[in-house]
């Protein structure tokens, strides 16, 4: 026994050494480096609009300082402002005016480029030439996106054309939508239309939809390589002087360079042209980040024009330098405790080994055995009860963050409110709860009959060879990740049904099918064969036996399985986000876009820090989701427990 333990220790010691070496070798010292061999890391996240430009800057910057690691992220994981205010990244790319609340929290904004948000439509639109000649005024845009007065292209052009306008907008909180809405005196949440995720999402949707209209950042309306308009996309010219036609001095859109020039010379209105910012949390205190922002403001500007962005003026460059020199130093901007956490984890492991090592000090064999027994039991108890601790932490943590919501409105108001306008402090969750429940129920309506029939077929009827095909197929289906179902939905269902409740519930239905079928099969298998035989002996057909004996006997089990599938549907995020269209609404047909609670959480991380209470609202959504799932889980658990007891 003694030697065995010694051997075990011998195996574990190198492992421990490796772990410690791993944690200690990741120092990233950024202080006291001269610019020539500048080291450290710079992380940037945020807006789609600035992303292509930031790529150029980072490429050039890392060519000059190869030792600096630059992490650049945009889109789903690039949360920009939230990240920078929380100290998760060094720079946020921002494509709208910073809010005062954000400046109060310590955000410092540096203007680094300019661009514009442009209305776009599909090049395959049959009225293309007429639209190009007519242009669009701010008032027209208001009637399309806000009031919905214009529903056909004829109304826009002043003809009697009856082709419908399919309006697209952004689902994620973003600068493009805010700037665009500001053009006709509105805010993003007022914009109507099918909401699509991300800037590229809109251009893609509009290219595919001949009657679609949307808006894009310059960077995505034009091809970034050739600077010509994206194939399949047309920019809708702004009718600046509202004379219902596009005159020569309003034809600014041929390439990205021409529009950039127009913006620089002030021939294009602002908004929809705008400043683009890099935002930091206080002036960067580490050399790498400081050098990076200096580079962007000075030498980096020469890359703006070749890439179709507008240079910043000398005045704003001087302004930025002044901010850099005079601004409040970032207090521990690199508040990166990741390494500290790794160290703590390492320490815990070392402590564990030390306690385990105590046994070797004990002379008596029996004492050692008892010690080991006690140790292991304590460890197991701690681990087991940590589950309950985690549950409580989840509830308390989310509740703590969500609590500020209740200062302003009651629980009832939050749950039944129908208006979702964060900037006005209106947080009505009803459309989201409604959408979540609707998609869940509809998907169960699809999958329950299908899975029940399939399960009966497999267990009672199917010849063996069919079972050998169906079972592995279901296993495969069960193992596929939800994002794959999302891809399937985007590629095969969206072209037929659009971003809609129907699409999402079909995707979800297919997703829960394998779970339900395998559960049903298990439940049917528990029905004793004797029962079936006696039913047959009484002259019942197979279907009668199934219906009156097997299904009736397994009814509670079926119910529990359905509840399980329900709770899975309620929490599904990625697949639903990809196909739901993200429009909070209460009434709508099967073919209308909608919104769910998980999608709300997934989409709105970017703007959480900018509006008071927004973060609380998102956390409240998470809490709501958690409680819903808890409810369903406990329900199914209770039923299953009853069944077990009966058996």
């Amino acid at each position: 026994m003694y030697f065995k333990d010694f051997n075990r220790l011998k195996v574990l010691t190198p492992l421990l050494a490796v772990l410690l070496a791993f944690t200690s070798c990741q120092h990233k010292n950024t202080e006291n480096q001269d610019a020539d061999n500048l080291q450290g890391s710079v992380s940037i996240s945020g807006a789609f609009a600035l992303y292509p430009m930031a790529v150029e800057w980072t490429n050039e910057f890392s060519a000059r300082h190869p030792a600096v690691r630059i992490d650049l992220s945009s889109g789903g994981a690039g949360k920009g402002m939230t990240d920078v205010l929380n100290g998760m990244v060094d720079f946020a790319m921002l494509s709208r005016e910073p809010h005062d609340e954000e400046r109060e929290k310590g955000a410092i904004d540096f203007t680094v480029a300019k661009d514009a948000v442009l209305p776009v439509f599909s090049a395959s639109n049959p009225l293309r030439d007429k639209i190009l000649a007519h242009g669009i005024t701010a008032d027209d845009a208001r009637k399309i996106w806000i009031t919905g007065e214009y529903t056909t292209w004829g109304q826009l052009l002043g003809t009697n054309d009856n082709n419908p306008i399919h309006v697209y907008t952004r689902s994620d909180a973003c600068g493009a939508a805010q700037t665009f809405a500001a053009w006709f005196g509105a805010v993003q949440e007022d914009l109507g239309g099918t909401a699509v995720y991300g800037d590229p999402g809109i251009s893609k949707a509009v290219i595919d939809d001949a009657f679609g209209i949307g808006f894009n950042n310059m960077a995505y309306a034009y091809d970034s390589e050739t600077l010509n308009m994206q194939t399949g996309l047309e920019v809708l010219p702004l009718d600046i002087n509202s004379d219902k036609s596009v005159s020569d001095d309003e034809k600014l859109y041929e390439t990205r360079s021409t529009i950039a020039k127009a913006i620089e010379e002030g021939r294009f209105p602002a908004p929809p042209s705008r400043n683009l910012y890099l935002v930091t949390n206080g002036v960067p205190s580490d050399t790498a980040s400081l050098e990076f922002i200096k580079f962007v403001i000075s030498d980096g500007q020469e890359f703006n024009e070749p890439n179709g962005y507008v240079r910043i003026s000398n005045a704003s460059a001087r302004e930025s330098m002044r901010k850099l020199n005079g601004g409040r130093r970032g207090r521990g901007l690199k508040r990166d405790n990741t390494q500290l956490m790794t160290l703590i984890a390492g320490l815990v492991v070392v402590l564990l080994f030390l306690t385990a090592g105590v046994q070797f000090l004990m002379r008596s064999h029996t004492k050692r055995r008892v010690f080991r027994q006690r140790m292991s039991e304590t460890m197991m108890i701690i681990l087991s009860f940590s589950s309950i601790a985690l549950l409580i932490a989840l509830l308390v943590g989310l509740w703590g963050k969500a609590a500020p919501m209740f200062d302003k409105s009651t629980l009832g108001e939050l749950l039944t409110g129908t208006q979702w306008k964060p900037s006005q402090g209106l947080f009505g969750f009803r459309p989201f709860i409604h959408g979540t429940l609707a998609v869940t129920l509809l998907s169960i309506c699809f999958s329950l009959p299908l899975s029940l029939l399939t399960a009966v077929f497999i267990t009672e009827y199917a010849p063996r060879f069919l079972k050998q095909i169906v079972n592995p197929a279901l296993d495969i289906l069960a193992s596929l990740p939800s994002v794959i179902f999302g891809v399937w939905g985007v590629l095969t269902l969206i072209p037929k049904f659009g971003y809609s409740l129907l699409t999402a519930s079909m995707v979800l239905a297919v997703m829960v099918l394998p779970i339900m079928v395998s559960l049903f099969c298990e439940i049917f298998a528990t029905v004793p064969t004797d029962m079936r035989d006696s039913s047959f002996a009484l002259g019942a057909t197979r279907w009668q036996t199934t219906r009156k004996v097997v299904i009736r006997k397994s009814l509670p089990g079926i119910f529990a399985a359905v509840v399980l599938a329900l709770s899975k549907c309620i929490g599904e995020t990625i697949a639903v986000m990809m196909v739901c269209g993200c429009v909070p609404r209460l009434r709508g047909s099967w073919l209308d876009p909608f919104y769910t609670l998980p999608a709300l959480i997934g989409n709105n991380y970017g703007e959480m820090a900018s509006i008071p209470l927004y973060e609380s609202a998102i956390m409240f959504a998470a809490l709501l989701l958690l409680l819903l799932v808890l409810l369903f889980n406990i329900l199914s658990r209770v039923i299953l427990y009853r069944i077990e007891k009966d058996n």
Partner: protein
Amino acid sequence: MTHIRIRQIEEKVMRGVMLVATLIVLGAVISILGTILIRGCKALSWDMVSKFPGKEWNTAPDGGFLNAILGSLYVVVPAAVIGACISIPVVFYITMYKRRRTGVSYIIRLAFDVLYGIPPIVYGAFAFLVMVGVGMRASVLGGIMVTVLLIVPMMIRSGDEIAKTVPDEMVDAVYSLGATKWETVWVVLKHILPGMLTAFLLAVGRAIGDAAAVMFTAGFSDQPAHSLSDPTATLPLAVFNWIIMPDPFPNRAYAAALVLTILVLVLSISSRIITRRITRLNK
């Protein structure tokens, strides 16, 4: 006579309906796999899975998404190992230390069952709160943390099922030889290890495909991660991000989806092979 006729017709109709339902289910499977395979095969090239993103990554086919593949592995493999280290003791505790059905093991089981049902996005939001609280950045470590939360309830659930197959007589025999519970653990461990391996592979397969949880915690980056504190791309998130971006990104999304599918299928099939081996051995 007619009554019997009606019954027989009913029987035939129902048989037909069931066949149709089964075919619809099979059709869905074929449609999904077919879509992923066809789009993916067209888009996939060796460069994509063997190279990191190049300089011209954003505008032209330059380099590949090896960083996302590695990122997924960096996050999931350590998380699964840590998950196993946490869940195996818990399984022992609820099945052996509290062997006869007791309140304690019932409560713990219930707690883990509830944790199992919690949507990944809620874990993601919670982990984000914690990370902001302690001052961590989006990083591989953050991804590992949240994936552990995701994996442990899964492994405990399957481990619990496996531990039920350990014969009571065997445990009693070990006790009767004077072994402590801790010493008994090693005997039982041998018995359930292959089963736990299956559970391990299945949990890895589940975790590697989950995007919602790592969305807020692991971040996204075109650079490969070099240490635990670097943000990293992960495969499912890459698919989610790229599918709506302009060319050449959608093709990468299809290719990444295919790679992800293959990874997950290999894991699930190998776990099934192991299960089959075990059941054959036990016979």
